[in-house]
């Protein structure tokens, strides 16, 4: 257990009757990091957040905050604040009263509340909307009120439950930047739940990928992008070509795998037993096209099946010549191959390092 962790989940699980929505899970969250929990619906990500917030009790395990188990501490005594998916603004209170709520229930002096509310509203750029009721605000404004309300008490951790899901794409982008910036400014731990991998990549220091009630992989966005740890992560996290194969040989610094792309060489990996089936992932942008006839060590002859123009890049679908029915996708800068068309014979090539073996 790292010493600088602010929050530690130790063997935390949750079951409803016989249905286990979260398998026993360990997770350490570091002080001041922006951590994103990413997964499809039903993956258990919201359950984790609700257990940290104290809205749901874990079936087993410990939640250690600064080393102390807080499982039995009621929500209102936990030093965390939440931004709810539906914002959960109090409809009968004006913006000022919504934002000042946390201070008011703690009995903070009125003048102090007024000062802090003004300050926080300044931060979220809502100084002029203080006297509005929530239903007179736009979605983005409500979002910022919810945020202001959650940070005014200076919580140790801010929990965000898919807070941007209801916003349109443009607003979402600017809120992402705003949130990231805010987190840096107030130096507070953010735990951000989302099902949008793009959002996760653009904001998080670390991403926790979840599926079927368990953690699939934890890592920086770059790590997870480059080295997906499982087939699920490879599929869920951006686009990947998944290539099945059988380990032929594994010795002397490299392994040899017989696959749909022919014999491919990957760095030696002690866990690859000869004769076992594996799946390899390679990102579309990591596959290069070289002219037919060129000989590169890691390559395969292919035929262009379709070309989709996407602006700066184009997406090319290829069928591999020996198999005929195995298709891969390739993403290329449009300008590199201005005249590529369906039926062209090409050679697809890759670097061994760009192949990831999925276990």
């Amino acid at each position, binding site marked *: 257990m790292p010493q600088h962790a602010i929050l530690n989940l130790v063997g935390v699980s949750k079951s409803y009757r016989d249905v286990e929505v979260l398998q026993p899970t360990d997770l350490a969250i570091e002080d001041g990091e922006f951590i994103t929990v990413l997964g499809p619906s039903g993956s258990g990500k919201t359950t984790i957040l609700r257990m940290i917030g104290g809205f749901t009790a874990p079936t087993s395990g410990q939640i250690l905050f600064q080393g102390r188990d807080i499982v039995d501490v*009621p929500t209102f005594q936990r030093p965390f*604040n939440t931004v709810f998916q539906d914002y959960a603004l*109090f409809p*009968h209170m004006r913006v000022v009263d919504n934002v000042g*709520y946390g201070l008011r*229930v703690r009995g903070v002096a009125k003048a102090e509340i007024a000062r802090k509310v003004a300050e926080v509203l300044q931060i979220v750029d809502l100084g002029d909307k203080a006297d509005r009721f929530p239903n007179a605000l736009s979605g983005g404004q409500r979002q910022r009120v919810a945020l202001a309300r959650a940070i005014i*008490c200076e919580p140790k951790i801010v929990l965000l439950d898919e807070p941007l899901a209801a916003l349109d794409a443009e607003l979402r982008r600017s809120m992402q930047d705003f949130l990231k910036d805010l987190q840096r400014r107030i130096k507070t731990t953010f735990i951000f739940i989302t099902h949008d991998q793009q959002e996760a990549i653009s904001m998080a220091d670390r991403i926790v990928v979840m599926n079927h009630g368990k953690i699939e992989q934890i890592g920086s966005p770059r790590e997870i992008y480059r080295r997906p740890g499982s087939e699920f992560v490879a599929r869920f996290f951006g686009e990947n070509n998944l290539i099945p194969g059988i380990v032929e040989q594994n010795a002397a610094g490299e392994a040899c795998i017989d696959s749909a792309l022919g014999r491919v060489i990957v760095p030696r990996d002690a866990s690859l037993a000869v004769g076992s089936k594996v799946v390899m992932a390679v990102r579309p942008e990591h596959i290069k096209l070289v002219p037919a006839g060129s000989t590169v060590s890691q390559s395969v002859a292919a035929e262009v099946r379709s070309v989709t123009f996407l602006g700066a890049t184009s997406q090319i679908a290829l069928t591999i010549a020996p198999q005929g029915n195995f298709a891969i996708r390739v993403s290329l800068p449009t300008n590199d191959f201005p005249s590529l068309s369906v039926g062209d014979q090409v050679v697809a090539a890759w670097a061994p390092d760009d192949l990831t073996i999925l276990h």
Partner: protein
Amino acid sequence: MIRWSLVRLAVYGIPTLLILCPMGLFLLSSFWSMSGNKMSHSWTLANYRAFFANASYWGIYLQTIKLAGIVALFGLVSGYIVAYLIWRQRGPLRYMLLLFSVIPLAMNYIVKIYAMRGILGFNGVLNSALVWSGLLAKPSTMFVFNQTAVLIAMAVIYLPFAILPIFLSLERIPHSLVEASADLGAPPGQTFRRVVLPLSLPGSVVGGLFVMVLSLGDFLTPQMVGGSQGFTFGRAIWSQFGMAFNWPFGAALAVMLLLAIAIILIAARLLTRYRRTS
């Protein structure tokens, strides 16, 4: 097309006619009068003058409104407590309790009054229990045939009518608001006072007003458990129809009662609108 508009006319028109026609007739006949044993169809305000001239009629009118108001307050407070306790439950238990609390709605009203008298009466359950426990030496008539008995009986009979709208107004509060309040540091008591109560109050008051309207028109319960203090305006109206055969005067009294109910309903409507805009 014509057939459909005819159908629509029937669907909307017939119920409207069925409600409006008798009410219109009422209003009309309240401006007629009796000459001897016959109804005279010439216009007069005499019935309304008679109402305001006779202190016992408008006195009982005000008293009945006051009684209904107190019953409504009773219903509001106890209905709120019951509805809140049900609302706090989770899962199937919650809806089972709700069902139990509204089952009395399916019971005959007269049966309920008799049951209440069976509880409060001289040899009733309450007296028997008190005598058995030694708190009373002999059965007492203090629980029945007085104003308190009317209040208790009406509050009990109309309680389900209050519980349902109050429960619904609690149910309309998103659970996330309660969680948000706790999340922001409010203990359960503060969450109730600052969030749950203010958000459910308008709907609950409407439930209370609903009870008030019901008790305004109820003359049987006061009559049967109120003893010599059980005279209400509804009974006065009844006496004009069933006993005095003075339908125009009875109609005028009924219009006055309708007026009170209309004012209450308008108040309820203003309250719900307030809730929507705020």
